[in-house]
């Protein structure tokens, strides 16, 4: 390109790990040219949770439509692209396979490198659309399937320092939501209710005394369910907003406390908050308050509209992986239980 104009690097990204089919075009790893998301939430609401076979079937209905819209909205051609990135795990295997098969075809048909992306790296890189990531950094990843603290010594390096021993935070939200008769997924709804109530139930805060960065939410979930069932038996009416507020405060306290421990042990420039539950207002407020105690650490929260699953975040993480020389060949498979390494 003449006139000193830098060639823009475009990544076409695919995401299909759970119940969203998404295709995006990302420029230079930080600019969204398109981010088409087809969500199946309405479909799975019928069953009170994601049914894997139903999810896989929807992905195959949507995948080329999303690809068409993403290319058109971005106003680019295949010739303009630098690489194709795709989520290959973790997630539902049948769902992942649709994105992987489609991405392999596009990469092969147009002679483009294929970049495998860990979905959780994608969630972290949703924050990249807010501002640049500075290393070393720690990410608190809270989503429907994961709750973990990830240390990033440098670009493209991800190491788990702690994770949940049982339920993920989002999963706990959805499960207690069901007990309250709320529609799936209940996280957002409970978050809103929590703001109308107060922490009056004093539910347990798990693993606060242990010398590690791990979490546990199943005890809290059980305490919550027992409280509700007991009240039903004795015909007592509980204030649901107070229940929501108490549950949420317990979750937030544990997440914030373990994050604080991590910030004390690791010297980092940034704390990143990402994953579907990163949309939680109580958690966002809790971390704002925490970060006030640290003068040298910046809090980088994934933008609200990019906390849930989307291909833009996969494109941003894929761009970084691609710059660091990562690629896959045509035998790339889905890896439903893909995990970052432990530190």
């Amino acid at each position, binding site marked *: 390109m003449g006139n000193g104009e830098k060639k823009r690097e475009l990544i076409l990204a695919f995401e299909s790990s759970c119940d969203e*089919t998404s295709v995006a075009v990302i420029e230079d790893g930080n600019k969204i040219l398109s981010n*088409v*998301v*087809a*969500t*199946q*939430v*309405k*479909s799975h609401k*019928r*069953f009170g949770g994601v*049914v894997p*076979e*139903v999810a*896989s*079937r*929807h992905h*195959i*209905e*949507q*995948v*080329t*439509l999303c*690809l*068409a*819209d993403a290319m058109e909205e971005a106003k680019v051609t*295949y010739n303009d692209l630098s690489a194709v990135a795709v989520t290959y795990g973790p997630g539902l*295997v*049948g769902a992942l*396979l*649709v994105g*992987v*098969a*489609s991405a*392999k*075809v*596009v990469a*092969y*048909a*147009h002679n483009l490198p294929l970049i495998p992306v860990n979905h959780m790296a994608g969630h972290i890189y949703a924050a990249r659309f807010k501002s640049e990531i500075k290393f070393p950094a720690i990410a608190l990843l809270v989503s429907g399937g994961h709750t973990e603290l990830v240390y990033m010594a440098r670009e493209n390096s991800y190491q788990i320092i702690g994770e949940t021993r049982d339920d993920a935070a989002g999963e706990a939200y959805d499960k207690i939501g069901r007990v309250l008769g709320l529609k799936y997924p209940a996280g957002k709804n409970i978050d809103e209710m929590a703001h109308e109530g107060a922490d009056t139930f004093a539910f347990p805060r798990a693993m606060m005394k242990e010398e590690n960065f791990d979490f546990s939410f199943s005890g809290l979930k059980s305490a919550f369910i027992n409280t509700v069932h007991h009240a039903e038996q004795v015909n007592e009416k509980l204030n649901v907003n107070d229940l929501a507020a108490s549950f949420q405060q317990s979750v937030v306290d544990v997440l914030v406390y373990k994050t604080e421990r991590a910030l004390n042990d690791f010297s980092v420039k940034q704390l990143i908050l990402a994953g579907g539950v990163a949309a939680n207002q109580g958690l966002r407020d809790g971390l704002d308050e925490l970060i006030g105690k640290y003068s040298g650490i910046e809090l980088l929260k994934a933008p609200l509209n990019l906390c849930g699953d989307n291909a833009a975040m996969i494109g941003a993480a894929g761009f970084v992986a691609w710059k660091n020389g990562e690629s896959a*060949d*045509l*035998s*790339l*498979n*889905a890896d439903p239980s893909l995990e970052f390494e432990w530190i």
Partner: protein
Amino acid sequence: MNILAIDTSNETLSIAILKNKNLVATITTNQSKNHSVTLMPQIANLLKQVNMSITEIDRFVVAKGPGSYTGLRIGVTTAKTFAYTLSKELVGVSSLAVLAAPINEVNTVIIPIFDARRDNVFAGAYLRENNQLKNVIVDQHIPLEKLLEKLSDYKRLFFVGVDSHKFAERIKIVLKDKEIQFSANELDYPQAYYLGIMGLAQEPVDIHSFVPKYLRLTQAESQWLEKNQESNDESLVEKI
């Protein structure tokens, strides 16, 4: 017209490149443990062997089902994405018809069978007329006993497919006064060359809306439909 034909509907993986009705190259393997891993490298290899580029393919033909749900999705996603991204044609052919195609018997119903477990099968029935395959019992998911009932109208029957042998005893007992044959080994496996030939004769389909013919609702959906009579018209997937 150059055709790439893909069948990943069951354990066997078969792909073929055709120039009109002529076979250019084909590969069929029963050693593809995982079609997700195997399919694309095999396509790339086959094209390379015959010095062709994927961009020279004019039509993608895929075995659309029934079969293993995962296998079908790998084949169909691959074929539909190829057709879309290269602006080429897409054709889907019954995976059962692919098995029936090489059977050269006249005045005989040809019944390709896939085991669908718990005494159920995916099956259809075909007749060869004027060198064309005519579908006489539509492809369906059906208990074996019911299928055999439906077949009692016919006198000469030819069962085909690896799975057909599993049911040989039962078939011979139930249909004891019929003339029954079973496919020999070499005809037990789907061959993408036949898939390509059949795909050549069909009209291309709309690419975006093309999905596998599973021939079965998911369990969650059929249970939901039992409880929720009201129609299910509203769109279940939304762009956000």
